[in-house]
């Protein structure tokens, strides 16, 4: 990627969810439990680049994506978009940015309002940001639909009349109709059948190419991310443990977690020597993350130091960095 000012710069962003305390606990002054869904994440996304974000369920991917879009307010750190710090902007001031930053959701069933027709769903951004009338919005939507592989005759239909793949196309149309600069794709294909998944991936890649879109592409499927991303960030329990160019991550993963992910990914042709090694155990609770390196409880290569000291980020060159005691010294 060219060295230029990044479109999106995320610096040490944290997002906590406080678990509501009961009145009794409040009386007894128990401080509310806090769930660190995102714990100090930093990365850049250059204009036109696609950053893949991968990790297990519950590791904080969606939260990160939403925090970047100010759908959650960051509790710490900062997010800058196009050179402007946006994470602290009041909603009114931020509103113009909304048309430039969009999101595509995972669940094609939940992300479309079942009571609104396609015309209303796809036309909503126009009405909100361009002050279009219902008619104008519908006309524009009709123009746009063919680009996502739907036809204008679908305008008057309702989401329940579409298949999952088609719904996802509607969601994409809604996100892209205002021609945004940056789109968070939160597992846009995870819920789809393989044959449809490929259609949607192709569509997204087409748009990226045609309009020079910048994506933050979230997925739990390495194969999908590997296919679409320029760079990949691997997330574990709210932290980014490894980030680097796609090829580097897939060819020479540095973090044991990345390696494990690669090892367990189903493959049609298993390469000799890559015996499947399943990771032990489940993802620990984010309410009470392990001390030291958060991965040490499941790490096959854990050393005593991993249990006590959090590793710092080591730059492995060519934009590849990792947070692991196996690489470089701990500070």
């Amino acid at each position, binding site marked *: 990627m060219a060295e230029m000012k990044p479109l999106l710069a995320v610096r040490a962003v944290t997002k906590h969810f406080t678990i509501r305390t009961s009145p009794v606990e409040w009386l007894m002054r128990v401080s509310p439990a806090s769930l660190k869904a995102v714990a100090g994440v930093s990365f850049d996304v250059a204009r036109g680049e696609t950053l893949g974000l991968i990790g297990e369920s519950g590791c904080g991917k969606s939260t990160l994506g939403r925090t970047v879009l100010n759908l959650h307010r960051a509790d710490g750190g900062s997010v800058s978009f196009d050179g402007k710090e946006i994470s602290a902007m009041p909603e009114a001031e931020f509103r113009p940015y909304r048309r430039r930053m969009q999101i595509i959701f995972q669940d094609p069933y939940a992300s479309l309002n079942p009571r609104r027709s396609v015309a209303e769903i796809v036309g909503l951004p126009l009405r909100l940001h361009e002050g279009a009338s219902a008619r104008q919005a519908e006309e524009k939507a009709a123009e746009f639909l063919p680009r996502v592989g739907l036809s204008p005759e679908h305008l008057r239909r309702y989401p329940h009349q579409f298949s999952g793949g088609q719904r996802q196309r509607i969601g994409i149309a809604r996100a892209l109709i205002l021609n945004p600069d940056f789109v968070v794709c939160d597992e846009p294909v995870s819920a789809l059948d393989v044959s449809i998944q490929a259609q949607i991936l192709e569509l997204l890649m087409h748009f990226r190419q045609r309009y020079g879109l910048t994506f933050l592409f979230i997925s739990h499927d390495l194969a999908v991310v590997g296919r679409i991303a320029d760079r990949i960030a691997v997330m574990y329990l709210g932290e980014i443990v490894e980030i680097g160019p796609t090829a580097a991550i897939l060819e020479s993963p540095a973090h044991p977690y990345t390696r494990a992910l690669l090892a367990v990914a189903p493959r049609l*042709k298993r390469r000799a020597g890559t015996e499947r090694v399943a990771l032990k155990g489940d993802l620990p609770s984010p309410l009470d993350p392990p001390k030291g390196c958060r991965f040490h409880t499941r790490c096959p290569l854990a050393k005593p130091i991993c249990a006590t000291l959090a590793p710092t980020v080591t730059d492995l060159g060519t934009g590849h960095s990792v947070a692991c005691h196996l690489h470089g010294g701990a500070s």
Partner: protein
Amino acid sequence: MTDASRTPLLEVRGLTTIFPTRAGPARVVDDVSFHVDEGECLGVVGESGSGKSITFLSVLGLVRPPGKVSAERMMFAGQDLLALGERARRAIRGRDIAITMQDALTALNPALTVATQITEVMLAHDRAGSMDEARAAAVEMMRLVGIPAAAKRLDDYPHQFSGGMRQRIMIATALACRPRLLIADEPTTALDVTIQAQVLELIAELRRELRMSVVLITHDLGVVVEQADRIMVMYAGQVVEEGAAREVIEDAAHPYTAGLLASMPSLDTLDRPIHPIRGQAPMPGPMPPLCRFLDRCERTTEACRKSVPLQPIGGGRASRCVWAEEVAHG
């Protein structure tokens, strides 16, 4: 791989399951025939709604009205399932043929302890004489599927376990009577990659250990290829292709299978561009007597505009395509 001359453990011919829909009766499972041999693992692949689950629920006699099941032949270990009464079929369920459901989160009863849910199978099928015996066996089973501190967790409720653990508990329940056939319906779909691998590993191990036959239902070809001996591909209620796992993957004989393979992003083929199958599977409902893959297929000709039977193409393989040979070698 099993000996072809032996009688199969489960043999089904002409299985058809019909649900009434608004549009008319839908043949959700349409004239499906297959067999599972002793000790074999049959992989069943197909996209969502293709009828994979219903096929095997039909075999178990668990399709609820208004669904209607019919078959020409349904033999299990020498017994004619079609001739059995409800009681006798219930006796087979859970004891000889067990199933793990698609979604462990919803398949375990949230209101009952794990102990109850595992022991009741054994008690119902007289595999345990007393509650104590059943509990001891349940602990054993839980240990077998890899649940730490099994004895202590016996009286916990499902929600106290993580997703992967619940999947294991469901497997433990299914295996409680040491069935001869385990139908594993998408055992990994609801799970995270790292957990997925653990569960697949577990099933493979148990299969070896208990010497049972397994039907592994999935929509992920990658999962099947590593586990299954044979693969059966379903599309829109029909079997479209069947054959030894390796061969099907390497040499698909049906355009749908080929399309699936081509559209699958795989870590091995990152350099190859993906080729999605266009369009989407037909909705359930009455279907014209045409090849069901017709409007998604790239090879469509006039010859496809009729109903196509599943034809053997040699080597124990079969395909429901007029162009089977060409597809396989083209």
